[in-house]
C-alpha cells in the first residue's frame, strides 16, 4: 500500500499543544502509549525522553507514515481494543469536533476529526476504557476543545473515579479554546471505598 498523504492528519495547533504538555509530563522511565498517533509527531517527541513508546492508529496511511517516516512503534487498532498492558502515560489527541451524520465524509481522515454529534463520542469511550491500562501512577494527557464541552468531559472522568485538571490551554483565532487535560486516578476515592 502506498501512503496517501491526503488521508493523514499532519501536526497542527492541537498537536503542538499536546507535545508541549507531554514534554513537561513525561519521565525517562515512563511506559508511554499514544492512542491515535496520526503522523507520529507526538510519539516521536516523547521518544526523545523515554525509549518505551507504543502507538495505536486505526488509519493505515497514518500508521505507515508514523512507522516509516517517524520511526514509531505502531500497531493498527481501535483505541485500547488490542492493548492488554499497563502504562504510566497515555496520550490522546482525540477526534473532538461535533459532527452530524450528514456532515460525515467517509474517509480515513474522518477518524482524526469526527467526535460524533456531541464531539464526545470517542472521548467518552476512551475515558471508560482507559482505567485498566493505567499503572498506579499512570496519567493521561487528553487534548480536547471548547467545542467538545469541557464540563461534560470532566463529568465523564468523575464517573470513572478519575481526577482531571487542565494543564494547558490555547485560544484559537476563531475563539475556540484547545485544552490538555491531565487525568489520573482519584486515589483518595479508592481509599474511601
Amino acid at each position: 500500500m502506498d501512503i496517501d498523504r491526503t488521508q493523514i492528519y499532519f501536526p497542527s495547533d492541537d498537536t503542538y499543544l499536546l507535545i508541549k504538555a507531554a514534554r513537561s509530563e513525561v519521565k525517562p522511565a515512563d511506559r508511554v502509549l499514544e492512542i491515535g498517533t496520526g503522523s507520529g509527531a507526538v510519539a516521536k517527541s516523547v521518544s526523545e525522553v523515554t525509549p518505551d513508546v507504543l502507538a495505536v492508529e486505526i488509519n493505515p496511511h497514518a500508521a505507515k507514515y508514523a512507522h516509516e517516516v517517524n520511526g514509531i512503534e505502531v500497531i493498527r487498532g481501535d483505541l485500547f481494543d488490542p492493548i492488554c498492558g499497563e502504562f504510566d502515560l497515555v496520550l490522546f489527541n482525540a477526534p473532538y469536533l461535533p459532527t452530524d451524520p450528514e456532515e460525515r465524509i467517509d474517509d480515513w481522515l474522518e477518524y482524526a476529526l469526527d467526535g460524533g454529534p456531541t464531539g464526545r463520542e470517542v472521548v467518552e469511550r476512551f475515558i471508560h476504557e482507559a482505567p485498566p491500562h493505567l499503572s498506579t501512577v499512570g496519567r493521561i494527557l487528553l487534548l480536547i476543545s471548547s467545542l467538545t464541552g469541557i464540563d461534560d468531559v470532566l463529568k465523564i472522568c468523575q464517573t470513572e473515579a478519575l481526577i482531571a485538571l487542565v494543564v494547558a490551554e490555547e485560544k484559537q483565532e476563531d475563539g475556540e479554546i484547545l485544552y490538555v487535560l491531565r487525568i489520573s486516578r482519584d486515589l483518595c476515592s479508592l481509599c474511601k471505598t
Partner: protein
Amino acid sequence: MKRRILDIICCPVCKGKFMLTEMEGNDTEIMEGLLTCTACKRVYPISSGIANLLPEDQR
C-alpha cells in the same frame, strides 16, 4: 513490530494472548508474520513491521 510488545498486545475481539508465526524478522523486530489468538484462533497479519490488530471486517 518489536518483539517486546508481544506481552502488551492482545486479540481485539476476545482479549486472548497471541502465538507468533514469524516469516521475516531480526533480533528485535518482526517484519512479516502472523499473530494467532490462542483463545479464539483469529489470525492477524504483521506486514512491513506493522501488526494489524483490527477485526477482519474493519481492515
